[in-house]
């Protein structure tokens, strides 16, 4: 069974309360989605113009699409470009485990739309585009209703193919320029949509930006840590009792997050989704949701996915399936990615099938090291981190597979949708 997360369950963990702006940590997902409730709760979006860049800088806002790039630097780079500029809000969220952007668009569409407007004013853009993945009627409908409420007829809504790689920044620009949606070597902030300077920001990033525009950097920093201020959306999945979307302050312990979602005896935690790393449970439970804490174990929050593998689940089956998903997700442009991910999938699959060949795990290690940094985008790097950490964390189970002794059921906890074929 392919257990895909739904965007139904949303909860907020308790944290420090601030006096101005939305109280507590329910910043992004608090309140009904309609325009009058939105304005009643948060007030109208003030026009900060280019000053918003300084506010984002002071707030320490970073991108929530996975790369964690400082938002102010991206805004500055686009604002410094020549000619009319473009703002693209990326709500494609092709990472199979992640549902936080879809949830945000359904629950708080006006916050995202405010963020697009604020960013467009900051970089003086005259074109605004919102990209969402095809085949999500709830998201589509929420956006349609919100735009009608705002009487906004100029925002372009583009449906992107259901294909992880087409949500990559340069690939999305390629798609918007009429291409197939493959990564390119262009840098969107210089050469983006219609070859104009283009800001591509994740929708959660833009929602935070809309709050920074209203309530300022001090309010933004009133929760979280000095190095990782504010809140973040997490998608909790795998072997947890209440999977779903959680808004948490940065700095909260992973143990508290997992306890809230409800976990049994945990073997390992995938931190950062398919582009993150596997950590043994005893290590994961000692960490906090912050760059420093996770970074000490080469992990990062990525797009905010946390997935749990418990004792009653064949992890090698999950590794093999996601390795195959990676191979299918390659755009087939870069040699090391095209062939490397294919061979990594084959080797991981062989381990799962019980091949006693002792070289298979060594092959996986060799090829993960070989593909890293070799693509035009970070797809091979993601596969490398996922598989290299998986081979280490599940070494014992891999030995069981090689001896034909794994008795754990394949529960298919990690979804692996087939990418939409290339045109």
């Amino acid at each position: 069974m392919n257990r895909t997360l739904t965007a139904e369950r949303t909860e907020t963990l308790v944290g420090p309360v601030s006096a101005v702006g939305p109280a507590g940590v329910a910043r992004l997902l608090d309140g009904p989605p309609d325009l009058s409730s939105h304005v009643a709760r948060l007030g109208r979006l003030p026009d900060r113009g280019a000053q918003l860049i300084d506010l984002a800088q002071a707030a320490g806002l970073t991108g929530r699409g996975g790369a964690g790039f400082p938002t102010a630097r991206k805004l500055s780079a686009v604002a410094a470009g020549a000619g009319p500029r473009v703002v693209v809000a990326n709500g494609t969220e092709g990472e199979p485990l992640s549902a936080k952007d879809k949830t945000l668009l359904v629950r708080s569409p006006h916050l995202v739309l405010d963020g697009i407007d604020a960013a467009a004013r900051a970089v003086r853009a005259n074109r605004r585009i919102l990209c969402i993945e095809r085949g999500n009627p709830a998201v589509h409908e929420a956006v349609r209703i919100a735009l009608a409420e705002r009487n906004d007829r100029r925002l372009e809504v583009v449906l992107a193919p259901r294909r992880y790689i087409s949500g990559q920044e340069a690939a999305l620009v390629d798609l918007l320029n009429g291409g197939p949606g493959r990564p390119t070597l262009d840098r969107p902030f210089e050469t983006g949509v219609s070859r104009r300077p283009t800001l591509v920001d994740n929708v959660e990033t833009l929602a935070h930006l809309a709050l920074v525009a209203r309530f300022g950097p001090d309010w933004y920093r009133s929760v979280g840590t000095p190095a990782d201020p504010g809140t973040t959306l997490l998608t909790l999945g795998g072997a947890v009792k209440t999977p779903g979307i959680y808004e948490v302050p940065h700095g909260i312990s992973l143990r508290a997050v997992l306890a809230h979602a409800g976990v049994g005896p945990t073997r390992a935690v995938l931190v950062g989704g398919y582009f993150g790393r596997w950590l043994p449970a005893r290590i994961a439970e000692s960490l906090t949701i912050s760059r420093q804490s996770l970074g000490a174990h080469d992990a990062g929050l990525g797009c905010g996915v946390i997935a749990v593998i418990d004792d009653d689940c064949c992890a090698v089956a999950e590794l093999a399936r996601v390795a195959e998903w990676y191979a299918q997700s390659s755009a087939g442009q870069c040699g090391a990615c095209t062939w490397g991910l294919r061979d990594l999938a084959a080797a991981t699959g062989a381990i799962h099938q019980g091949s006693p060949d002792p070289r298979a795990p060594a092959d996986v290690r060799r090829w993960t090291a070989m593909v890293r940094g070799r693509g035009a985008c970070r797809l091979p790097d993601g596969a490398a981190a996922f598989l290299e950490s998986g081979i280490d964390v599940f070494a014992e189970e891999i030995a069981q597979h090689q001896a034909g002794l794994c008795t754990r059921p394949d529960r298919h906890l990690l979804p692996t949708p087939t990418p939409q074929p290339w045109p």
Partner: protein
Amino acid sequence: MTRRGLRLDPIGCDGHGICADLLPERITLDDWGYPIVDPSPLSDDLIGHAERAVTNCPALALRLEKVLDAAAR
């Protein structure tokens, strides 16, 4: 001072492998025949070989680019 280093366009590269023959000091081939390029600044004695590797790439996927010396960083 600025020196030059090799840059590979991984999309353009077709894995002909000629570059690795011409500059084995800096370019090796991976298990699939695609070049792994060391991007660090080239010493004077390697520049001529690097230029040959660049001009002989059938895919025009290799180029020389100014890079900052590690010492100057």
